[in-house]
């Protein structure tokens, strides 16, 4: 079943000359699967995530021939409907828990808030459910952690809190925008594993936005390669080695391989790719 159906999505930011087009007409569909969206910084990948959530700042134009969530036209939905959809039907995990968690609110309350908003206005139940979620994201002492403030926990814990918070209402679609790039390398994997496990268990769709092709290829079923606001290649994760597009190949080439260490990682040859810009 198709969760997300996007056709010809364009995102334009106002600038001094009128508008700058960050996303230039991309189309894809997402079912109960793990889809990776890969691109370097400035490729427009974060704009895609926030456009789906309709969380881009005022003045940014989102246009699409189709932007459907479970068959519902998101672009036409009134803001009130969006308030219902956000957190409940789709949710988003942001990059750095040091900034994305409210520093002055205990983490437990931040998790409960989603439950109270979308599931049931019952503090006792919300608390019990939040503790359960904390346990599910493998936090050792949920009772104690519940009352801690974001500055009192580590980055890895913070991102697990974020996951608990964004999954507590059981969303159908989870967008994870660079969920591990701000974390210590030693915990990246475990955090992704927790995310992966929970998403898989609930049968939700996952849009994993990342610049890191290696990570994406490990945790996703399918990968979209985004370059300068356009999708240049769509490929199964297992088939990445057979990627045809030069940009993808270049990205692949720059992944360090522990089994075959190289003294230098090749640079991306942008000139070689530049000629692709004009092609749709």
């Amino acid at each position: 079943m198709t969760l997300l159906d996007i056709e010809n999505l364009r995102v334009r930011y106002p600038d001094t000359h009128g508008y700058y087009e960050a996303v230039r007409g991309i189309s894809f569909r997402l079912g109960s699967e793990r889809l990776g969206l890969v691109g370097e910084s400035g490729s427009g990948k974060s704009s895609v995530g926030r456009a789906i959530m309709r969380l881009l700042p005022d003045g940014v134009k989102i246009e699409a021939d189709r932007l459907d969530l479970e068959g519902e036209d998101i672009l036409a939905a009134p803001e009130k409907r969006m308030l219902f959809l956000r957190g409940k039907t789709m949710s988003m995990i942001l990059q750095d828990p040091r900034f994305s968690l409210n520093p002055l609110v205990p983490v437990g309350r931040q998790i409960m808030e989603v439950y109270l908003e979308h599931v049931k206005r019952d503090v006792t139940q919300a608390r019990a459910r939040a503790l359960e979620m904390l346990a599910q994201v493998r936090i050792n002492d949920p009772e104690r952690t519940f009352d801690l403030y974001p500055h009192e926990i580590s980055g890895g814990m913070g991102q697990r809190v974020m996951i608990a918070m964004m999954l507590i209402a059981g969303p159908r679609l989870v967008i994870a925008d660079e969920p591990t790039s701000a974390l210590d390398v030693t915990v990246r994997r475990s955090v992704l594993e927790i995310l992966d496990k929970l998403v898989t268990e609930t049968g939700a769709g996952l849009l994993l936005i990342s610049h890191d092709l290696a990570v994406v290829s490990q945790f996703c079923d399918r990968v979209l390669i985004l370059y300068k606001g356009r999708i240049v290649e769509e490929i199964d994760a297992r088939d990445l080695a057979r990627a045809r597009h030069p940009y993808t190949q270049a990205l692949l080439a720059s992944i360090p391989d522990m089994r075959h260490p190289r003294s230098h990682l090749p640079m991306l040859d942008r000139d070689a790719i530049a000629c692709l810009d004009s092609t749709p």
Partner: protein
Amino acid sequence: MTDDIGVTPAGLRKWSPSALRAGRAIGVLSSIALTLMGLLLLTFLLARFLPADPVYAIIGDNADRDTYERVYRELGLDQPVYQQFFTYALKVVTGDLGMSHITGMPVVRDLLEVVPATLELAIVAIILGSAAGIPLGVLAGTNQNKPIDHVVRIIGLIGYSTPAFWAGMGILIIFYAQLGWIGGAGRQDPYFFGEVPTVTRLVTVDALLAGRVDIFLDALRYLVAPALILAYNALAYISRMTRSFMLEQMNQEYVVTAKAKGLSRGKVIWAHAFVNIRVQLVTIVALTFGAMLEGAVLVETVFAWPGLGQYLTRGLMFRDMNVVLGSVLVIGIFFIILNMLADFAYRQLDPRTR
């Protein structure tokens, strides 16, 4: 509740908590005493450079030389400056701020009159100013460049640029002279003077304590105009600062998180962004309140409000050292109290500072 997480420097462990607390209290108190003494010394030295001769302020223009010299000695002006200060400082420690020659009363007694007058005004003004200024600032800061933002900025601009003096006269002309809604000068109708026992020295509170609603309403009628002008000035500053604090917070990632959770706009603003500007607001409100203690001279003058600002200004004008030093001391104490309250508020409002 987070004691187990707090880090205790190893060296301090051998002290019992009560000894620690006592030690800290002594440290705080002595630093306050030092601050106040430093403030006094600075004021004392600065006041030496005031142009007016305090002796003539006392004896008038036509007094002869003998009188001049007697008063000169009486004021201790024949002694070296350091000795004058030492004598003064010793008296301050015993709670004696000396006599004022601009009122003929002990400065302590004067301060007991003028400080409550100013406090009554400033407390009402800061409550009104914050109650209006903060929501307006939040409204503007969360609607950047929309019409409401411009409206709030214009309201603030008017508050900034209208001289308190003209605003005061304008209000008096309309609401006192024309409409007769408010009192003209002072804190209450002199008809009611001395009618209720003096307890707090706040006319409104004393009237209520005595159960005299008529006197309370009368005092309100005198209080409302000067308080509103001060409140409006406070509003201008508070709303502008609140706006910029909110602008900053609304661009933070946790606000995106809050929105991604599907929270309503009101909850995003008040339960998330606003929570993060409270500490800054406490500072701004405390500063604004402190500034009103001595900065309300013009309003006090127009409305003949017998407050601290007027008292200090006249002390400076007539070079009444005891008045200047006593007033500065009181203002200093208030700033220290405000500071401590603000510190306390920080610790309540921001877990990171605990």
